[in-house]
């Protein structure tokens, strides 16, 4: 399928999600349980995205890799500093250092 069409579909879905309750004002009480469940969407989605990427390299289960160690360091830095920039720099830095040491 054409990539333009895929992006337009994702864009339409994103817009519908964003305007959902702004358009349906007045139904808030009815959807209390839904709001309580949606609170967990970021925590769950990002965990499900990140954890397998740390343990898999090119589609193969790899329980000990430089990426896993760099990822764990980045998680610790993110927890302590809450800084986007420091998290990305520390993760890339640790990965680069480990790859350099292992290649030597």
């Amino acid at each position, binding site marked *: *399928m054409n*990539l*333009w*069409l*895929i*992006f*337009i579909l*994702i*864009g339409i*879905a*994103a*817009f519908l*999600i*964003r*305007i*959902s*309750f*702004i*358009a*349906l*004002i007045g139904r*808030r009480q009815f959807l209390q349980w*839904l*709001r*309580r*469940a*949606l*609170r*967990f*969407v*970021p*925590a*769950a*989605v*990002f*965990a*499900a*995205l*990140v*954890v*397998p*990427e*740390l*343990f898999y390299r090119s589609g193969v289960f790899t329980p000990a890799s430089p*990426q896993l160690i760099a*990822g764990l360091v*980045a*998680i610790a830095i*993110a*927890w302590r500093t*809450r*800084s*986007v*920039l420091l*998290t*990305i720099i520390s*993760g*890339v830095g640790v*990965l*680069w250092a480990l790859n350099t040491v292992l290649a030597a």
Partner: protein
Amino acid sequence: MSPRQQFINGVRTVAPLAIGIVPFGLLCGVIPVNSGIPQDLSFAMSQIVFAGASQLVASQLIAAGAPWFIVVLSASIVNLRMLMYSAALAPHFAALPWRWKGLNAYLLTDQSFAVSVARYEQEPEMPFKQWFYLGTALTMWVPWQIAAGIGVLVGRALPPSWGLDFAAPLSFIAIWIPGLKDRPMVVAAVVAGLVALVFAFLPYRLGLLVGALAGIAAGYLFERARR
């Protein structure tokens, strides 16, 4: 307070957060072009979708050759959190005409939501709420598009040895970890991560869907059991 003053207040309030998203915006230009998506399309995606995590998931899945409906579904799951933001903003935008509602919805981001709702709670009767919001939203949109544009232009020139494919999970970690504010959220994250890992053998990262749903259910049930 005039509309103009409210707009400027919004710009000022969100400015530090807008600077913080620049590295992520760059990646949202770099990663699509390095996934083999043409430059013009990679840049257009930033305006059509305007949701970074969603754009990165779409790029990775397109590079993996996933069918179109899996790409659309997985890229949209990541955006479901914005239902929650929409619900929180809805009462403040209720009286606005549709063109305002549409514009504000398109521009909705984690950061604009967070600072606007915090401001509205401080001053529930404040005038020209939509102008404050628009100030925050455009202050996110403009630097984001510039960063993504630069990322698209430099993307192919970056050597693979820099490990930039690893920058996508790192940027997810940077958004995800600071958001874990209480124990039910940590439970949701741990369950989602473990279930996604167990089901990682499924094609097209369907493990993402299974893991995310398991995590949401776990967090919800854990919180309900505690009350």
